[in-house]
């Protein structure tokens, strides 16, 4: 349904999107994940024909965004990052205007508006001016506008930003229920959201795709790469790290929490290689006390951090939360 090939977008000298490619099948819900400034919004703006790409192509439902923008726009519902609303219109008036410019035939306009209003639960504010609505309600009006014309494709840029927890759950349910009939791309910073709603995740960083898989596979793959937690007594962090690093098959060692009690090391080893016994031997042979050695799964948060942060950033960043054991906690 959506095919993106080698898409690049430059704003003057900054490259916001740098040769990304991905596909979305019909009925799929794709999560678009990345830190601030990764290029999520820019990609979505290209998919909705708001911005032309600098290089590469993007096709929606077989139509090129550049060559047949009207055909693409007819099939796409879009919530921009900040919901585009007219504060001096009431909700009904606004949706009526949206229905008109989206080409909803006048015979079915009223029914379509009622349906969107009901799905997004904004029935009780229909007569209110949009300028007087709370942030969450505005977000919902934005969502109502996007699903109004029943488009094949929905592009949702942070659709749950600013909602209360109850509404977040309802909106996720709504998005999930829209999948199947609609092809959905949604961007977010909230990782649990991705594992709950999306069938597949594309993680981008600095304009490049760094990972693409199902949430489960991503978790498994990184666990397969062997994240280990090694607790060593004493404050000999560097000595311990040195010992572990000397073991063949170990890719990286990071010191985490340091306390008088001991040092925790996070170790990443080559996929499919069990280095636990060798690490234990290496630590003990240097005269250090091994307190614990544990295999840990990474939560999506950690995968995300892992994929999108460089090592130098890690040195300065505050210590991440303790690793989740085995299962994705989200």
């Amino acid at each position, binding site marked *: 349904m959506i095919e993106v090939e080698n898409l690049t977008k430059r*704003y003057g000298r900054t490259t916001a999107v740098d040769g990304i490619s991905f596909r979305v099948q019909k009925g799929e819900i794709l999560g678009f994940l990345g830190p601030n400034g990764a290029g999520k919004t820019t990609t979505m*703006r290209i998919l*909705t*024909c*708001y*911005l*032309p790409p600098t290089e590469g192509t993007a096709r929606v439902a077989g139509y090129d965004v550049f060559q047949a923008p*009207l055909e693409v*726009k*007819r099939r*796409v519902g*879009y919530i*921009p990052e*900040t919901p*585009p*609303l*007219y*504060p*001096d*219109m009431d909700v009904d*008036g606004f949706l009526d*205007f*949206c229905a*008109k*410019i*989206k*080409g909803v035939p006048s015979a079915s306009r009223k029914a379509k508006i009622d349906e969107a209003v009901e799905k997004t639960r904004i029935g009780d504010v229909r007569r209110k001016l949009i300028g007087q609505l709370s942030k969450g309600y505005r977000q919902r009006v934005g969502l109502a*506008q996007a699903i109004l014309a029943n488009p094949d494709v929905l592009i949702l840029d942070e659709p749950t930003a600013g909602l209360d927890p109850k509404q977040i759950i309802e909106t996720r349910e709504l998005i999930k229920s829209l999948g199947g009939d609609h092809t959905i791309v949604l961007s977010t910073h909230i990782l649990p959201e991705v594992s709950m709603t999306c069938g597949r995740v594309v993680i981008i960083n600095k304009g490049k795709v760094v990972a693409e898989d199902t949430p489960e596979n991503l978790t498994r793959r990184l666990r397969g790469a062997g994240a280990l937690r090694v607790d060593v007594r004493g404050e000999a962090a560097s000595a311990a790290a040195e010992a572990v690093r000397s073991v063949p098959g170990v890719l990286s060692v990071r010191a985490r929490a340091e306390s008088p009690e001991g040092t925790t090391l996070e170790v990443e080893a080559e996929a499919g290689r069990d280095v636990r016994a060798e690490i234990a031997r290496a630590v003990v042979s240097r005269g250090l006390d091994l307190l614990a050695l544990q295999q840990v799964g990474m939560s999506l948060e950690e995968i995300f951090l892992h994929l999108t942060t460089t090592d130098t950033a890690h040195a300065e960043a505050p210590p991440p939360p303790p690793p989740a054991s085995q299962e994705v906690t989200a």
Partner: protein
Amino acid sequence: MTALRNVWAIVEKEWRHYFGSPIAYVALMVWTLLFGIFFYFAFSLFLRQSMMAAQQMEFGGGPKMSLNEWLIRPVMHNMAVVALFLAPMLTMRLFAEEKRQGTIELLATAPITDLQIVVGKFLAAVGLYGLMILAGLLNLALIWHYASTPPEWKPVLTGALALLLFGSCFLALGVFVSTLTRNQIVAGILSFCLFLGVWTLGWADDPSAGPLMRALAYLGVTTHMEDMVKGVVDLKDVVFYLSFIAFGLFLAHESVQSQRWRA
């Protein structure tokens, strides 16, 4: 068909903004008020002059004074100046505000072309301006009611047409200027300066001036009003105004499109 429907949707929306805010009421009020005042002064002047003329007539002299010449023409001319001031008010927010609110993203991703948006916004402004002219003309209804020899109605109509065409040139330019910034006050001030510039081109209209000045004067929007206010509609003038409007809208359209490229 869909094109018309889309344009109409934009017109309707802009009218909702005009009448949902004080803009429409202020513009209508100022316009009709000034129309009334100019009309009153022109009318009293006319009465005094015609009284003097009547006295002279007793001595066998003096021309017959025409209401059109003495009343309608000066009022139309004054209202053209008022249009110069009010036109920026009608156009300044058309695109600037959409950009500031981010709603331009809604319009740009809906299945509607940039041209339809530009034309829709322009027609909305022209519609409100037309309504203002009509409201002003109500003043004239008084003369028809009271004058013993009512004035010819044709120059009144052509005068109104001149006002409409002349003002629409400003509105088209104003739509263009509004696409240049996200600040509607800046758009308003810029538009006013631009209108003033176009207006003063007409001052170069002097038979003794060189060819360049004459050409510039030809571009001045006021130059083409004269005949129409007198009741003579010259096709050349109408074509001039329509091309001027088309050019303004063309600039607006190009500006909207090119900004998407650079953004």
